[in-house]
């Protein structure tokens, strides 16, 4: 069967000869596809849950915006651990049904956790 597909090169590169790193898109390479996203406000240490019901463990990413305290307004990717002002980890995990976020806000009064669950199967 003939080679076929879709390729879009970055500006300044010939799509006929561009290497993968110089492509904006290639149908021969997987992409991260967003399944769902949301935000959870946490005012104290604990666990928050977001259900996805995909039936498999998806890839995901998450960020925490600090409200109040030393780092008001800053947005960190999770997991994050700051020895000088956090006594415990912030980390995100996932299983077949949900994404679990545990946190301890430290000097912040609350955190807004933004999570993105990808369609892409991790395990």
């Amino acid at each position: 069967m003939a080679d076929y597909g879709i390729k879009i090169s970055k500006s300044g590169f010939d799509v006929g000869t561009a290497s993968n790193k110089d492509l904006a898109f290639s149908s021969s390479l997987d992409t991260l596809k967003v399944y769902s996203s949301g935000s959870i406000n946490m005012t104290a240490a604990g666990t928050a849950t977001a259900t996805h019901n995909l039936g498999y463990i998806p890839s995901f990413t998450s960020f925490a915006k600090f409200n109040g305290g030393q780092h008001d307004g800053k947005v960190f990717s999770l997991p994050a651990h700051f020895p000088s002002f956090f006594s415990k980890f912030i980390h995100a995990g996932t299983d077949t049904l949900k994404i679990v976020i545990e946190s301890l806000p430290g000097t912040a009064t609350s955190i807004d956790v933004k999570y993105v669950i990808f369609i892409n199967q991790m395990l």
Partner: protein
Amino acid sequence: MADYGIKISQAGFDVGTVADKDTIFTSKGSTPKVLSEGSASVSVGSADAGGPLASQGLTSVAHGLSYAPAYLSFCRIGTQTNRYHANNITGVPAETDYHHFWTYTDGTNINFVVGKNFQASDAGSTCSHSIYYYILADPAE
């Protein structure tokens, strides 16, 4: 309205029946979009001794957006060769100190912080750390 969109299946799957997880691309799910990328460096001074994070360095890069964007960042600690750590990492031993790397965004900048646990045996040293980053168009808040 009729169902419509674009779907590309992985090799070996029928695009007409493929599950979303077996697609290369589907317009049902948006994809992270890289807005800009670049390199930076963070220098950590040798100002004082003792204690966790006795010295810290900060480099900020303006992203030009009105919101805090999602990002990917990687840091090479000190003179480590071909060893880049992602986003947030603590306790990396290098050059007689333990180094810590964080990235955060706000409504103006993407910010890179490297701190180190200063040790008396390392008095007077400074370190430079190489960063590579991707700023995504997708908001992180």
